[in-house]
């Protein structure tokens, strides 16, 4: 039976390799979670804007229009809208705008926002220096704040033959209530938030 034993050793080795592959793929799946965020940040995938410490580009004479859009998830009892609908700026020029958030409920609420820019291909040239969206925001009952965003559009967009036809870029935010802050029971908050959505979408397209 020595050949039989060889057989079973070879079989066991093959099966072990297969199981290692399976374990590796499970590992890769979970590794893909942070990797996915990283890929989006680096490549601008899905319209993810860039982030920089400071603006080191030269200001170009070429102008571009940036529109501001705001959305609120129904779990968040906030009013949230841009303070200006759009702005026309020079490429490479740093610009400070702000969004106004108002907590319409009678309790402190923490929100977090997701963001992207369209057209998607412009994302890798849209660079934020400072943004309220980098962190969670907590508003006291009835509190109203202006939330700043500082950004510039990299003039390198002119050298990208696929993106240099872009005349208008839309910067969009959606505010959610953070998962940790969501109360266990929230029936009346939902109905309250339904009204909020209509007001908050003024200023979006």
């Amino acid at each position, binding site marked *: 039976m020595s050949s*039989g034993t060889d057989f079973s050793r070879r079989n066991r080795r093959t099966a072990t390799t297969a199981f290692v592959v399976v374990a590796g793929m499970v590992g890769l799946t979970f590794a893909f979670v942070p990797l996915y965020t990283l890929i989006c940040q680096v490549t601008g995938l899905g319209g993810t804007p860039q982030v920089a410490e400071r603006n080191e580009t030269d200001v170009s004479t070429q102008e571009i229009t940036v529109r501001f859009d705001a959305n609120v998830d129904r779990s968040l009892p906030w009013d949230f809208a841009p303070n200006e609908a759009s702005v026309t700026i020079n490429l490479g020029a740093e610009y400070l705008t702000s969004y106004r958030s108002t907590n319409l409920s009678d309790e402190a609420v923490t929100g977090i926002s997701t963001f992207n820019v*369209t057209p998607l291909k412009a994302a890798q040239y849209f660079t934020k220096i400072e943004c309220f969206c980098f962190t969670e925001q907590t508003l006291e009952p009835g509190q109203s704040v202006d939330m700043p965003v500082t950004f510039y559009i990299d003039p390198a967009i002119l050298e990208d033959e696929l993106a240099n036809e872009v005349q208008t870029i839309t910067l969009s935010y959606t505010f959610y209530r953070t998962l940790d802050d969501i109360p266990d029971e929230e029936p009346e908050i939902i109905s309250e938030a339904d009204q909020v959505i209509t007001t908050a979408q003024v200023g979006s397209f």
Partner: protein
Amino acid sequence: MSTTATHAHDDDHNHAPKGISRWLNSTNHKDIGTMYLVFSVVAALVGGGLSLLIRIELGEPGIQVFDVIGEMMGSEAKQFYNVTVTAHALLMVFFVVMPALIGGFGNWFVPMMIGAPDMAFPRMNNISFWLMPPALILLILSGVMGQGAGTGWTLYPPLSGLAGQPDMSVDFAILSLHLAGASSILGATNFITTILNMRAPGMTMHKAPLFVWATLITAVLLLLAMPVLAGALTMLLTDRNFGTAFFDPRGGGDPLLWQHLFWFFGHPEVYIMILPAFGIVSHIVSTFSRKPVFGYLGMAYAMASIGIVGFVVWAHHMYTVGMGVNYRAYFVAVTMAIAVPTGIKIFSWIATMWGGSISFKTPMMWAIGFIFLFTVGGVTGVVLANAGMDIAMHDTYYVVAHFHYVLSLGAIFAIFAGFYYWFDKMTGKVYPEWAGQLHFWTTFIGVNVLFFPQHFLGLAGMPRRYIDYPDIFAEWNMVSTWGAYLTMTSTVFFLIVTLIVMIAGRKSVANPWGDGATTLEWTVASPAPFHTFEDTPDFTGGNPAAHPAE
């Protein structure tokens, strides 16, 4: 595990354990293959019954049957329609096509084709099968508990998350897929080990039959794709139950992450369902043309390249999520590239028939039907591969028609082809030719009447996954439902004839198909004895199953 099961029994070749323990504790690849096939038929009856419900509902505008059924199930009509669609899809993918092609025919014929006495790990084979019935029960529970899981087989969050379906039904579906996935991974490991290590002496990989190649590539795809589904399902499960936020933007997650992970599994999954079919069809076309397969190596490597490229095309399922134009261009290009190896296969089948001595027996009819229908589905696939077209046609009945042509008609036709091809070998009985032909023609007409009009409905803009539609779509939907009735009648006829033949059929011979059948399973008696190839056949001097040239 120290020895294979080869010599566990005496020299009595037909010594089989008796009673329930033969099946519960089975380590025999043929018995396990049979159990997989029976399991697949049972699941097909449930899944097919659900599809008939869907077609009855869509036969005319308005809500016909689901208001009653929904109420009976403690749910609501539209939700239960979605539950039915979801259960139909999951059943057909995981509990009909995969068990039949891989677990059923793979278990039965891969060891025999390579001259091995059994699978490499017979007891692991047993657990692979016995994970499936609990998975099926969990899936059925996911449909009947609470509201039912009405997420579609793609389980996209937030619909599949707590926000969309808060009760336990989706958790049942997730656990069901976990079990089915574990079963597939164990089965795949077994096939890979068997095929790599246990081929008869002299049978190099380049001499292995194409069904063996197909099963090997399928097993590799399973090994790489299934863990990704398992990982993603685990994330969804923890999102639902343990407060994580992989797919929830409120906690820093991203619902699109699910779509990427799901389709990274999902696209290889469609090749997992079709590659074994390619293998079966190759054998049948060759057998009934009395010619070796044209371009054998090209056929084998075409399957391998389909498998490899299948892993880098996933985002063509999600063109509409807001994807940059460069990414769309990439996914269009690689997706269309898959048409090249697929075309090689279609042309090689035709070239195999070309100049052959063709006999249009039942298995050959199903195989040719497969080639025709798969080509139709392939052509609409190339249409949908174009991002610009797909954005217009995304989630319309055009897509439904496309994937039913490649899967429902492609994979299922190949399953029937394999069933008729190997029926004598598995049961030892002769299937009456007239019954097979009648079954083929009624099914062929039925499914075309069923699915071809759905192209028109899709092009006209009818979206999928809705219980109702505007009156303008009524006529073609009515035609489609007639097709479903014809197909279902044909299937009932098939089941009755098969039962009669298995009880009272004529006895068959070892090789009913003649000179064209050159693989090793035709060298043993029909039905195949409980133990085969305890004395390993020798390929070093050429194929012992080949018939001398006339």
